[in-house]
C-alpha cells in the first residue's frame, strides 16, 4: 500500500498548489517571465522523484543524494535558463533534454523491475 503514497501526495500537492496559485492572481507579464523557470523546476522534480524510486527499488537510496540532487539540478537548470536568456541561446533546452532523457531512463528501469517481479511471481505460482 505504501507504494501508492507518492501518487496520493502528488494529487494532494496538485490540488493545494492549484488553489494557492489561483489565489495569488499573478499578472500575465510576470507569469510570462518566470514560466520557463517553473517548468524547469517541475521537470527537475519529476526527474528526482523517478530517480528516487529507482534508487529505492534498487536498494541504493541515500537521502542526502536525493535532496541535494533535486536542489542542485533545479538550480543548475534555472541558471542555464537565465544564462541562455542573457546570451540569446535557448540553453534551457540542454536541461530539458538532459533531464527528459533521464526521466525516460529511470522510468524504463522501474518498469523493468516491476515486470521482472511480476514474471518471477507468476513462475513461482506455476511451480
Amino acid at each position, binding site marked *: 500500500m505504501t507504494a501508492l503514497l507518492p501518487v496520493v501526495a502528488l494529487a494532494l500537492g496538485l490540488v493545494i498548489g492549484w488553489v494557492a496559485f489561483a489565489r495569488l492572481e499573478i499578472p*500575465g507579464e510576470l507569469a510570462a517571465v518566470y514560466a520557463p523557470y517553473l517548468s524547469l523546476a517541475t521537470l527537475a522534480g519529476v526527474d528526482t522523484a523517478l530517480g528516487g524510486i529507482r534508487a529505492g527499488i534498487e536498494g541504493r537510496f541515500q537521502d542526502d543524494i536525493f535532496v541535494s540532487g533535486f536542489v542542485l539540478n533545479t538550480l543548475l537548470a534555472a541558471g542555464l535558463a537565465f544564462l541562455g536568456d542573457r546570451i540569446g541561446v535557448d540553453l534551457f533546452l540542454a536541461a530539458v533534454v538532459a533531464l527528459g532523457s533521464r526521466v525516460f531512463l529511470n522510468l524504463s528501469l522501474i518498469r523493468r523491475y516491476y515486470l521482472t517481479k511480476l514474471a518471477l511471481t507468476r513462475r513461482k505460482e506455476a511451480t
Partner: protein
Amino acid sequence: MFTSAHRHQPWVWQVTALCFMLGLLLAGSLQTVSTIRRAGGGPGRVGFISGASPSLAATLREREKEIADLREKQTKLENVLAEGSGKLKALNDELQLAKLLSGLTEVQGPGIVLTLQDGKPRSNRAFDAARFTIHDYDLQMVVNELVASGAEAIAISGQRVISRTAIRCVGPTIMVNNVPVVPPYQIVAVGDPGTMAGGLNMPGGYLDDLRMTDPSMFTLEKRDNVVVPAYTGRTEVRWAQPTPQKSDDEKERAEP
C-alpha cells in the same frame, strides 16, 4: 539484483514528500501557463509581450497625438491664411481636398464599424487555432472589400489606412502603419453604410466565410456618423519625384 542494502532508508516517505512538492510545482506551472493564455493567447507570444516596454508604447501614443495636433493646427492656419483672397482660397480648397484624400486630416461621415476578434477554437489543435485567429490577411481582405465598396476613409484600431499603409504580420502581432495593433480590431470606415455592409456580407464574401467559422468573431454596425482619425506616421518623401511637366505638343508625340 535489487538487494544490496546500502544505507537503506525509508525511501518511500522521502519520495512521497518530494512528490508533494512536485504536485505544488506542477500546479504552479499549469496555473502560470493558463494565466499567460488568458493574458496574451498562446505561449508563442510570451517573448513579444514581455519584450515590449509599456513606457515606450505610452511615449509612442503621446508623439502620435502631438503629430495629430500639429497637423490640425497647420490646417487651421492654412484656412486662416486663405481667408479674403479668392486665389488663395481656391488653392487652399485644393490643398484641403488633397490632404483629405491622403489621410492627413481627421474625417467624419456616415459609415460602418466592424469589430473583429479571435474566436474560441473548438479543439487544441494548432490548425484549428489558426482558423479561429484574425490574421493580417483578414484585415487586408476587409480593407480591400471596403475600398471596393466605395469607402472614402478607413482606420484599423485608430491607424488610418493611407496609400503607404502596409498591413502585415510580424511574429504574433499585426502591424498597421508599422504600429502594432491588438485584438479586438476595430475597423471604422466612412462611406455609404449600406453599400459597405453589403459588400462585406456578400454571399461567399469575407463575413460569410467568418460566419461559418464562428459568428462571435465579428460585429458589424452601420452608423450615421463615424470619425476616422488622421494618419500620424511619417510623411517624408525620399525617392518619388513628380515627372517633369511636358507641353501638350510633346504629349501628342509620345502617344502615337
